[in-house]
């Protein structure tokens, strides 16, 4: 860690002061379970739902204050429009927001994947064209990576990109797109050179979803009963060649480094949400008169230790990310190695806590609340949602392969060569 304790504490005092003077108290209401879907969409960078919701104006005001003082995408480098915060500062920011009960203003995948891809691999023209609309919230991105035959084997993707003058004509199908219905733009991978080896002929492209885009977006329903995922059918959809990031046929390298940043970025703050989740389990065990049960306490303590280890691990990953964002190529490769361990641990710990919560609660935990649609309460949602965590964004098996091969130097899985 590069920062001295007193510097961190100064920083903490500063951001706490900013939050104190700018907080919009009504937004604490967002913590209520009935706003779960709204919170999910806010995390992906969009207000979705009724503009008459009294929280809508409060949210607008909160975002405007962030924008006015430059607190959106604050960890981006200054040349990209951010404040150049390192991950420790980010962690402190997140902690202070949580302490104040205020939501973080996120620009979703635009902030965490597209921005880094553009500022690390894009050219100046692309930076000035694509980054400001992410910061001001006018561009909301969804991810077009997985395909029916390209899940864990992402390099098997079949979507094609054919150069036609100054454009790329894209045809194919994408699946498991998170919150696909809220985006106006997609970042996708397509095969632009079918003759090249699997990993070499792929391009990373930004494409408009609105208007006559020849892209059909269809919702699918997951275990939670919600339709957070979509599938997209692209039929000769056009994107300017100027929207290809990192150069034609170079999309694999762009993808791997930005995925590592995403996985690693989560690692710096993931423990905060898990600590809150475990806190809820403890509170429930107390309410049910079960908090003195020794075996149950062992399980709670095991999760607590996991969360503490994640806190320390997250700080280390944070340091590596800081160096990577500042252009340290060795650290960009290092991220891929450490981020997989962080992602895997976080996913498995979250699944275990969600399962523990349901077991502590008993039968009542399995009965969904009344109301329209497919309602689940917070703990039920966490149980069902967490099942996806070892599948999405690179399955647990893929993360273990990455660790084995890149972190430990073991030979490639003979079946996957």
């Amino acid at each position, binding site marked *: 860690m590069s920062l001295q304790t007193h510097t961190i504490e100064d920083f903490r005092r500063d951001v706490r002061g900013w939050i104190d003077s700018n907080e919009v108290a009504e937004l604490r209401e967002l913590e209520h379970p009935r706003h779960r879907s709204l919170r999910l969409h806010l995390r992906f960078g969009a207000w979705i739902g009724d503009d008459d919701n009294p929280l809508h104006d409060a949210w607008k005001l909160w975002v405007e204050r962030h924008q006015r003082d430059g607190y959106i995408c604050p960890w981006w480098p200054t040349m990209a429009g951010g404040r150049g915060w390192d991950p420790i500062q980010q962690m402190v920011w997140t902690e202070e927001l949580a302490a104040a009960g205020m939501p973080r203003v996120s620009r979703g995948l635009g902030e965490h994947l597209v921005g880094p891809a553009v500022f690390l691999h894009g050219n100046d023209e692309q930076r000035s064209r694509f980054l400001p609309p992410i910061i001001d919230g006018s561009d909301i991105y969804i991810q077009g990576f997985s395909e029916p035959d390209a*899940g864990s084997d992402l390099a098997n993707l079949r979507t094609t990109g054919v150069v036609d003058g100054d454009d790329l004509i894209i045809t194919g199908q994408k699946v498991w797109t998170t919150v696909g219905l809220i985006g106006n733009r997609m970042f996708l991978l397509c095969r632009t050179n079918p003759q090249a080896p699997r990993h070499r002929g792929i391009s990373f492209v930004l494409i408009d979803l609105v208007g006559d885009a020849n892209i059909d977006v269809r919702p699918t329903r997951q275990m939670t*009963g919600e339709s957070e995922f979509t599938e997209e059918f692209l039929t000769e959809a056009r994107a300017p060649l100027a929207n290809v990031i990192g150069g034609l046929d170079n999309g694999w390298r762009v993808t791997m480094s930005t995925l590592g940043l995403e996985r690693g970025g989560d690692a710096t703050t993931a423990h905060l949400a898990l600590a809150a989740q475990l806190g809820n389990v403890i509170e429930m065990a107390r309410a049910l008169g079960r908090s003195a049960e020794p075996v149950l306490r062992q399980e709670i303590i095991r999760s607590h230790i996991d969360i503490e280890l994640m806190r320390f691990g997250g700080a280390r990953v944070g340091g590596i990310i800081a160096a990577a964002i500042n252009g340290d190529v060795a650290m960009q490769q290092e991220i891929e190695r450490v981020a997989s361990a962080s992602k895997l641990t976080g996913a498995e710990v979250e699944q275990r806590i969600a399962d523990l919560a349901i077991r502590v609660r008993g*039968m009542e935990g399995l009965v969904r609340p009344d109301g329209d649609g497919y*309602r689940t309460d917070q703990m039920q949602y966490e*149980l069902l949602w967490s*099942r996806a965590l070892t599948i999405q964004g690179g*399955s647990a098996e893929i993360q273990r392969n990455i660790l084995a091969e890149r972190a430990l130097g073991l030979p490639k899985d003979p079946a996957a060569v």
Partner: protein
Amino acid sequence: MDFDLAERELDLRELCATFAKREIAPVAAQAWEDQRCPTELLRAMGELGLLGLLIPERWGGIGMSTVGFVAAMEEIGHADQSIAAAWQAHTTIGSLPLLTFGTDSQRERWLRPLAEGTVLGAFGLTEPDAGSDARGIATRAVRGDGGWVINGRKAFISNAGTDMSYGVTLLARTDDGADERATYGSFIVEKDTEGFTMGPKMRGIGWKALDTRELYFDDVWVPDEQLLGDPALGLNQFLSTLEVGRISIAALSISLTQAVLDLALAYAKERRQFGRPISEFQAIQFKLADIATELEASRALTYYAAFLRDAGRPFRKEAAMAKLKASRTAAWAASEAVQIHGGIGYMLESPIARFYCDSKVLEIGEGTNEIQHLVIARALGC
């Protein structure tokens, strides 16, 4: 040692396999989606004699062995867990207290229709504030006017609210002594009895086609002939019934594990990544091998507990072990099977997602796994 099923048990298993494939499998997903208990299927099972499986022929059943019941459950539960859950609740806790503790006239009046499959049976123990601790129930039956007046509330009761339900057999306090001295009795309450009402069908994470409700008893009067067994020994009566219920949930669990293994294996052979079926990857092969191994261990324990019951030997510990092992295996195996399916397994419409959602309740229902641990520890002498 003979690990083979008897001819009669094999015939039953084949009958259930055919019924499950032809009648249950085609409609199960829709019933789950609609959250509707398909009583037409349960009636059809009744016509085949399956609703009186553990009841002697004298009372309208087919007098099958417990081992045969487990074998039948393997087929029914493999097709759908909700229907199997309704069937097992009827067959065990819904019917057996009447057989074991009822008088002949009670058996004739209430057990025979249950065994012949014209009505569906339910048992009411759990309450909003008393689940694992059966002694903590608050529902009370007070002696008076040549009968009993019942007041209280039951929660998570299966099979009481369908168009095929006859009512419920419930447990109530009969004497309000201090906890150690309190006594409990079992009572039969028919569905149209004045003061007996119920809440709407609960909406679960899993077992969505199972009818589960809260039941309310407000000054419900029942005559003496609706008291089942000894008015002071109802708790022990119920607990002994629960031992069979544990074998039943263990059987339901192994049927789920077999179902998710079959689905995951078929998918792994069909799904190609990195140029070959994922079943060729060691990580996937070992997962499947582990599921198959744990399944066989669970199956062996479950059949052994069933065998002990059929032989008239004590089986409390073994039933608890079977329920603990089989339900834990089922929940774990369902999760692993979803993992093998990847993204498609997380979609609500996929059969594997349905089994995953159904798996959670197995560790909690019919005595939580913490209770099974306690039963086993006590049997070990702790």
